[in-house]
């Protein structure tokens, strides 16, 4: 297992390298550059050139990439934003927390709701409850995030005036648990609805697949209580594929955060990503891309490890692979 994890981490390094190279090339190919965006067009050519030198954009492209990579590898430094001059590591560091908070809670809540509902709905297939759950999950998947978000803002913030429309804290109040929580509710509901909708369907179909297995019939034939059959024999096996879904869910949430954070002005990396792309803030784009790649690779790795732990058959095959 240890060997396997180490090997996966080592493989991740060239993957990350490749991701940054491709990102750099695409970014450089996109029209526009930070100097054009930052300065007004009236700027004398000499002044624009001074700015280019100051930002290090006068060097050939490969040298710019090399400088970026060297700083990253040697100093763990992602450079400075070309627009705000803030260190990129600090910018991302400040924004990653709120995004992870929002994503983490939504994912946890989503699973906490989806797994029991999915199981119940499978166990009582074709019951009224089953139809209700399936319909709700369908709604969760098909109602677009921005629509649900704006709708909730309209009802709970504007009409009922219960919750704030946007932000993470009330400005100047300094934050505090209750303050953050009230701001968290609406974006969290939207993301949770989405996660729940998708996950319920997987849990349900996975449970139904297991339900016809021989060993469940055996378990029942042994005279086991139905609860034990469902909770231990069926659910444990049904949840294995769900682990994979979870690994896929994290990158989806990461991408979906851009829209949600925009609607609710949530101070996470989603908005930072959008604004840095619009202003062609090269160093920030590179940093964000790297973080996103790390998250995806890490989520995949985690999924595989959990998968191996959950399913003894896979653990064996890893052992075999590690030995060879």
């Amino acid at each position: 297992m240890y060997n396997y994890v180490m090997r996966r981490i080592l493989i991740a390094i060239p993957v990350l390298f490749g991701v940054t190279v491709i990102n750099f090339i695409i970014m450089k190919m996109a029209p526009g550059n930070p100097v054009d965006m930052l300065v007004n067009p009236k700027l004398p050519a000499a002044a624009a050139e001074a700015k280019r030198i100051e930002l290090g954009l006068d060097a050939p492209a490969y040298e710019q990439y090399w400088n970026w990579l060297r700083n990253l590898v040697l100093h763990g430094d992602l450079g400075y934003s070309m627009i705000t001059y803030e260190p990129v590591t600090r910018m991302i560091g400040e924004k990653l927390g709120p995004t992870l908070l929002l994503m983490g809670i939504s994912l946890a809540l989503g699973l906490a709701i989806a797994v029991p509902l999915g199981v119940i709905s499978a166990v009582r297939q074709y019951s009224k409850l089953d139809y209700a759950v399936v319909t709700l999950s369908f709604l969760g998947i098909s109602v677009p995030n921005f629509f649900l978000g704006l709708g909730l803002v309209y009802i709970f913030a504007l009409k009922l005036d219960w919750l704030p429309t946007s932000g993470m804290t009330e400005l100047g109040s300094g934050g505090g648990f209750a303050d953050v929580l009230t701001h968290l509710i609406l974006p969290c509901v939207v993301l949770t609805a989405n996660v729940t909708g998708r996950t319920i369907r997987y849990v349900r179909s996975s449970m139904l697949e297991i339900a016809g297995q021989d060993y469940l019939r055996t378990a029942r034939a042994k005279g086991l209580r139905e609860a034990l059959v469902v909770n231990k024999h069926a659910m444990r096996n049904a949840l294995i594929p769900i682990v994979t879904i979870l690994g896929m869910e994290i990158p989806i949430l990461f991408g979906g955060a851009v829209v949600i954070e925009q609607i609710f002005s949530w101070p996470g990396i989603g908005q930072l990503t959008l604004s840095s792309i619009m202003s062609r803030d090269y160093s920030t784009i590179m940093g964000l891309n790297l973080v996103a790649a790390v998250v995806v690779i890490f989520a995949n790795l985690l999924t595989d490890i959990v998968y191996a732990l959950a399913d003894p058959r896979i653990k064996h095959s890893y052992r075999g692979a590690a030995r060879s």
Partner: protein
Amino acid sequence: MRARGSKKVSLAILIIAVLTILSACSGNNNASTNAEGSASQPAAGGKKTVNIGVTYAPSGINPLAPVGLVSTYVAGLMYPPLMEIDSDLTYKPMLADSIETTDNATFTVKLNENAKWTDGTPVTADDVIYTLKLMSNPAIASNFAYIFASLEGLDDAGYLPEGQSEISGVAKVDDHTLTMKTKAPTTLDIFKDTIGRNLMTLPQAALKDIAPEDLNKSDFMQKPTVTSGPYKLVDIDRDHYVTMEANKDYFRGAPKIEQLNFKVLQGTAIAAQLQSGEIDMNIPSAGVIPIEDYEKVQGLGNVTTTEGTPLATQYMYINEKVVPDAKQRQAISYAMNRELIVEKLLKGAGEAVDGYFNSTSPYLSENIKPVGYDPEKAKSLLQESGWDSGKQLTMSVLSGDATLEQAAQIIAENLNAVGVKVNIQMLDLGTLLDKLVRMEYDLGILTVSLTPINPLPDIAYFLNEGNPNGYKNAEAEKLIASIGAEVDEAKIKESYGKLQEIIAQDVPMPSIYATKALGAVNNRVTGATPKDFGMFINVYEWDIK
């Protein structure tokens, strides 16, 4: 039977858990209702707070090179410029009490003697000179340096020539007085408009240990700690908010509003947040309310609205390599139904314009008739010029502004109707600028705001060599040079008049419409008027009822 029972138990536990979560949430809902409720009176915590909605992020608040309008406002609240232009287009004293000249070449700047840094030391002429040297330092590469290029001792880009450490045209008279000499005579208004408005004096004592090349990246420029203006920076999150607190020792008077916040919003959110009281006001051109929401905002009971000056103007860039004949460009201008756009799309909140000057400009010539919608004339002009009606043009339009996108549709239809085949391409600002600067476009529409007092730098950029339209006219260049050297207002106006005649003939870059941005302020705030010029001059007098 037992199995069902235990399932019921687990279901019950689940329901209880959900209910607990919900009740915890609703408990907090109540808390927030209370907080919100009290916020519409003096704000939470008993502090007088005003929240200002803006639609542009304060991307860089470094006073040497603020990035964008909102950054400039925030920087100006920390570091007042020498003078600030007010809505009546006069200049109000800020850090300087007066700027005077007798010969239009040497300008005497008298600083307010009570001006103090937040560390208690006075703001002196040395600080001003130090800031000018930073501004003209190529290592800092400020994109505002060129504005100071008129000062003696600086090169044409506004930089101090290599090897020199002093600006020869700037001299200290006493602690609160200094003189600045320009290379060529200029008017007092232009001096105030360029150097007066754009120099935000920085504290020499606090910055002297930071090497100029490290200054942009320094922590001080991210979150300045020693300031002199009415508000101090508390916190900034560039894409979301800026929080500022009153500087009780502000030299023009302690601000009554204890906390001033800027909230970065989508334009579509402004109306809702004005209604809910989450924001108290907007800045017309920097917190742009979409025109669709004008009626809603004007109908809100708790706010007072103001109509802004027509500032943000849509210009059509025409690549002269593609449309080489002046008659063809005239035809394009005649073909556009500007009145329809103003009436139907802007619902009257704007005006039709055709050149570089609009009704707010003191230089608008009375002798030139505005271009009306005349498709027949456009057709005949095209015919005379031998326009190839099979030629397909691409019109590149700035994306993100719903009104502009609709206007572009109308214009494309107008042009197709007279025989100029046009298809629309929506581009984000970065891409559009890139295309314009490289002249890799046919037609382009972009929002430009010209300053009303001193439009010369903009006009020189659009008409002199190297402009993004590829336009060239020796006579226009001569006029521009003569305006730059003139100090007599009457003669300046005459020259601008002649220039407008040339422009009307050549149509290098017709404008289409200018929007009057709507301003709104909650009635609980007194003394504040949302306006594009001089909104924050009296910020220390604002109060809450």
